[in-house]
């Protein structure tokens, strides 16, 4: 089988401003960010012939295409729960189906409607999608929000391996430290300490508020083309060494309650094996990891699943934070991650009140910004100070026991910048 290794490259990236209330439609954000990413690549919009979006976003790709004046798309897809939009784009290009693919996300997560309200509306209209059928077994008992659904697996993870939640607190601490140097981040210049973590409210036991990533409004886009075509463009491309996704048995987005154990991430293990196989490298070669930190305990679980430490050793790996800091064994989310920079993902229901990234009252915290992308670990645009050439990107749509994982390795050896999706 033909390998996708080094056949494609990321040649353009862009983000909009990020805030807790964009005051704009998601279509407006999408059009702005796609044009900016195409400009960044040195391309014209009429050269883009592939579009990948995320099924999580409630946006109609045809409408975006119309507004941008993109006449013909030879490839387009919605990336579903836990599948990889980057893999969609890469395979479309590697197969010759498309020449230039744009992947985008656009969501008003800070201010807009959320998953819960979507479910309610769908219920009232008797929508019988698979997700709703599954939720039928959860929502009547008050289990609806992602923090609650993920908490079941987190509880088992803590219990099965004797983990002290205080160990997990080092994940948001380090992410906020990294975000403190990122002017786009919600924790810019405002790092938290471990004491802040211990003092933060338990919002859905076993999760504290600072275990949960703050949500923002905004959009991100990347442009992907073949490694050959990338050579004709002005900027140094980020060559995609490897990209993979994984799904496993009895998978469900956020829940997967009927698989053998809830304290591990089997799809992440499968994805990691494929990712390293295609790249021809292993965990010991990796110095930076952009992991899904929508919920902090997912980080040690992913460290175990990807082979950066042994089973049950993830929390000890995180303790004290030194291994996760820039210059440590594995620099984690050097932009601040979702926890530090901001999360672009449909999430908790809104019950009114002032805009606030956690949908909780947050006095004293800087509002607003972030380039986090649901399934798009985003190392700080073009100015990330990561000291290594290879970045491991592993993001997830599903948390503990979730539906699947995807990741990509980006080789940026020829430039100090790191770009990834």
């Amino acid at each position: 089988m033909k390998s996708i290794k080094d056949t494609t490259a990321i040649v353009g990236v862009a983000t909009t401003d990020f805030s807790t209330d964009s005051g704009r439609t998601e279509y407006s954000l999408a059009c702005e960010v796609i044009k900016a990413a195409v400009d960044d690549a040195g391309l014209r919009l009429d050269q883009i012939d592939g579009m990948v979006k995320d099924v999580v976003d409630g946006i109609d790709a045809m409408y975006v295409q119309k507004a941008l004046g993109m006449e013909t798309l030879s490839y387009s897809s919605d990336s579903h729960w836990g599948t990889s939009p980057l893999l969609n784009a890469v395979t479309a290009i590697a197969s010759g189906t498309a020449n230039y693919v744009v992947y985008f996300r656009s969501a008003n997560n800070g201010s807009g409607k959320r998953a819960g309200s979507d479910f309610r509306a769908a219920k009232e209209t008797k929508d019988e999608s698979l997700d709703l059928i599954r939720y039928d077994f959860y929502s009547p008992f008050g289990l609806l929000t992602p923090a609650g659904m993920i908490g079941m697996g987190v509880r088992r993870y803590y219990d099965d391996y004797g983990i002290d939640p205080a160990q997990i607190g080092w994940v948001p601490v380090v992410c906020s430290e990294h975000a403190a140097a990122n002017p786009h981040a919600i924790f810019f210049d405002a790092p938290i300490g471990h004491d802040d973590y211990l003092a933060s409210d338990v919002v859905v036991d076993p999760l504290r508020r600072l275990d949960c990533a703050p949500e923002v409004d905004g959009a991100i886009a990347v442009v992907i083309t073949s490694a050959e075509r990338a050579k004709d463009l002005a900027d140094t491309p980020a060559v995609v060494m490897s990209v993979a996704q994984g799904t496993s048995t009895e998978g469900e987005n956020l829940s997967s309650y009927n698989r053998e154990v809830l304290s591990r991430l089997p799809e992440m293990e499968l994805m990691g094996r494929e990712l390293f196989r295609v790249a021809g490298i292993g965990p010991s070669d990796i110095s930076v990891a952009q992991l899904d930190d929508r919920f902090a305990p997912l980080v040690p679980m992913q460290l175990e699943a990807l082979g950066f430490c042994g089973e049950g050793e993830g929390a000890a790996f995180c303790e004290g934070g030194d291994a996760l800091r820039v210059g440590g064994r594995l620099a984690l989310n050097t932009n601040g991650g979702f926890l530090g920079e901001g999360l672009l993902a449909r999430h908790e229901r809104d019950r009114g009140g002032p805009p606030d990234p956690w949908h909780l009252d947050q006095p004293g915290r800087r509002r607003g910004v972030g380039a986090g992308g649901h399934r798009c670990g985003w190392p700080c645009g073009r100015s990330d100070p990561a000291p290594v050439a290879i970045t491991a990107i592993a993001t997830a749509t599903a948390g503990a026991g979730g539906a699947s994982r995807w990741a990509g390795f980006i080789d940026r050896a020829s430039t100090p910048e790191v770009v990834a999706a």
Partner: protein
Amino acid sequence: MTIEYVPGIPILKASLDDDNRPFWEAVNRHELVLQRCGACKLYLQPPRPMCPECHSMDTLEWVESPGRGEIYSYVNFTTDRMAYPAMKVPYSVVLVELEEGVRLVSNMIDLEPDEVKIGIPVEVVFDDISDDLTLFKFKVRES
């Protein structure tokens, strides 16, 4: 009764279809039934149109369960804005592992959130919440 419902906010009921209807109709009769493949005897939760082991579609059957098991995991909703608006916080949601091996999300009727622990033996009960809604819930079982 440890779950307190908020008047005027509807509880999201199951949307019935041909795959899950027997389950919820049984709950209305105060029975717990589980989907099982009659050929390979595999229990399936949530219900589905095909057995993932032997791929048969016409051997799927519904078998009554005594509803005995233990708490496998749980979460406690302590903050109003991350909770389900129809229920007053704090409330606990449990994941019960039945003796048949499948797990069900539910609520306890006789434990406060701070009393819930992994491993507590439980058995099913039925809660007639309103004229048109019955839910299966669990209570502590004398082991």
